């Protein structure tokens, strides 16, 4: 069947504003949107810009807005967005990040926030000769948070970021939680200033848009709330100790 991809385009060297361009193309229901984009690029218009790599939803390169939803092009099948042919599918770059070209956005701000939460194991005690022990239950406590592929879909989906561009954002909190909930990590206090700042975890108002968008099925909103509870528990214990 034929479908029409309506793609938002922008080339900083020639355009002052973005514009939409239609591509009519034959597509099979079981194909990925990424396959269709690749065919456009290889056989219709080589100038179309987008990122891609793994093509099966594990590298985080090709998050974009498809019919207004933040998704990975390689994890969205044609049949998810078009059943009968002749449908028009809207393809746009992610929000809240500057567009560099067509569907390519500058993720610097996203990665800066990721780095700001110290996303690495903090434990100053020398490790034992073998592995640090951890029970299966302790390991599962942060399991879904380890799945993040830093695709920025949640960052684009977040309604808070629309109003408050300095909000830490969902993924950075997930990454912090991944360590806060790891029985081997001792970095809570080091991460606290960033998380507890006014633009840290607190602006989140439980819209759940990030959770709906996440291609790795991370319970983002839940993890943000758990992080808030950890901070509150810590503050309570601090004031009791005084």
């Amino acid at each position, binding site marked *: 069947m034929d479908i029409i991809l309506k793609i938002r385009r922008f*080339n900083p060297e020639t355009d002052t504003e973005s514009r939409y361009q239609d591509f009519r193309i034959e597509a099979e229901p079981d194909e990925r949107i990424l396959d269709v984009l690749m065919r456009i690029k290889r056989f219709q218009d080589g100038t179309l810009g987008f990122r891609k790599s793994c093509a099966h939803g594990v590298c985080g390169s090709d998050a974009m807005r498809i019919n207004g939803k933040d998704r990975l092009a390689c994890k969205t099948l044609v049949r998810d967005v078009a059943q009968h042919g002749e449908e028009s599918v809207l393809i746009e770059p992610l929000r809240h990040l500057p567009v560099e070209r067509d569907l*390519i956005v500058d993720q610097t701000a996203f990665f800066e926030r990721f780095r700001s939460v110290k996303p690495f194991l903090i434990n100053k005690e020398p490790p034992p000769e073998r592995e640090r022990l951890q029970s299966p239950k*302790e390991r599962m406590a942060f399991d879904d948070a380890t799945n993040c592929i830093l695709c920025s879909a949640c960052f684009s989906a977040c309604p808070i970021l629309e109003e408050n561009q300095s909000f830490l954002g969902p993924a950075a909190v997930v990454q912090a939680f991944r360590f806060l909930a790891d029985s081997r990590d001792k970095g809570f206090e080091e991460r606290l200033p960033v998380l507890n700042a006014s633009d840290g975890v607190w602006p989140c108002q439980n819209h759940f848009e990030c959770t709906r968008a996440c291609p790795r099925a991370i319970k983002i909103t839940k993890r943000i709330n758990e992080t808030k509870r950890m901070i509150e528990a810590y503050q309570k214990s601090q004031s009791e100790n005084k």
Partner: protein
Amino acid sequence: MKHTFDAIIVGSGGSGLYAALEVSAKAKTAVLSKVYPVRSHTGAAQGGISAALGNVEADDPRWHAFDTVKGGDYLVDQQAAMLMAEEAVQAVYDLENRGLPFNRTPDGRIDQRRFGGHTRNFGEAPVRRACYAADRTGHMILQTLYQQCIKNGVHFYDEYQVLDLALKDNQCAGVVALQLSTGEIHVFEAKTVLFATGGFGRMFKITSNAYANTGDGPAICARRGIPLQDMEFFQFHPTGIKGLGILISEAVRGEGGILRNNRNERFMARFAPTLLDLAPRDMVSRAIMTEIRSGNGIRGDRKIDDYVHLDATHLGKETLQSKLPDITDFCKTYLGIDPAENPIPVLPTAHYGMGGIPTDTHGRVVIDNKGTLIHGLYAVGECACVSVHGANRLGTNSLLDLVVFGRRAGRHMADYVNHGDPAGIATDATDFSREWITRLTAKKKGPHGGRIFDKMQRTMMEKVGIYRTETHMARAVGEIQTLRERYMMVRAEDRRNAFNTDLLELIELGNLLDLSLITAVSALNRRESRGAHSREDYPDRDDPQWLKHTLARLEKDDVGLTYKDVDVSLWKPKPRTY
């Protein structure tokens, strides 16, 4: 723009990042990567990393080394394999200590599971040697190493595509790279350079490999006169999702999954009575193709796109959810089936290049049988050939290769920068790259590369695939040569500088064409069957003639071949049965 460093790492997959952690602690280092580090294909690795920890049953590094040698059909350099198996144990503990969230045993240790070709006591029965984090082991390795790089302030140049290597006599001088966001050419002068650019599965039509896996490092080296080793050995993984090539990890069979034909028969019992579905990959892939050719595929029409079933229905929802969650998700997303209820339709998929840039066990590039070095030049990971994988790699041994040899190369580089003078980069270092780009962008007319890409992938898949013959391969060589000629006429449609992905893809196509030619010629010349190189006209392994590594040199439009000894100092080659 010109930059000066002590050490340059090209590539930020598992191998590049591990080396970067080591060398950056002691020398001024930069990591260049054409994709964001966390997008590297190491993140796609699923099943596990092997080490004889013995956490769930008795194990021994010597058994691991032996399995590696036998799995590689005796083309493995045996001391290198032994070293890898011995250092594996500490390497896995290091990863855990740095935060890697492995699955755990009830007593809190790193859990281990079975994988193809890994056995107890020199082949008795499968052993649990693969350490794993669900079916996301590579993702966790990549994340953990990147986290450590952030912690240690490693300097990254993200989205820089390296185009060329600068050599001065037998010494490395630096690299030339294109900055994707601006189209600007940069020169990185350095005393030492490490290539860690990963695999090149994109030369085949159906592959488990990422779009970025285009073999840039080996192709760059080949054009600079460095031979590539054992390129005829390319592994087809038995279980890719039919049609798409997306990998279904061997861990599915490690956990008990079974391959079945259209009579619901467990056909591996006929091909490998002891290890059954956990025989090495080359054997399982051939078994599947043999079944399909004899009309035992699910459709039974003997066509090469017929398929078989991977049955995991008896593993139960819980095991699938806790140990193979991503596989379950892939099946649901791409096939619309739940592996707990339906068998998975699978077919072999081009997966892993055993060959690559020849190195010693410090990652130093060695260009001949006499041990001649290119001073300051290193390679590790899938783009390199140590050789620990020989003619067929065992599952979980690649991730291990990355960390063991990534670490060794990084340490050696840190030491190397303290000795001798830099070669100094020549003023004309960028000429080759500039000419290449001009050729691709300045023309008024010319075909686009899309069709050449397609044709190359089909040629390699059909004629230099799982089963090979003289006639087919000779034809493939001719076809690739023609495509290389047509490539000279190709023109990029995109003329802009910022994120000209059209240009980048054409550059990658050029790299793949060079590697395809080298692969096809190396394969055509090896008149025996060994590991993944399986010839219908020479079905047996021929040790007297062919127990040797191929060294293939790109000489303009031809390939010159020489050979190199294999280290068989530990175990005498024996027939390979399982």
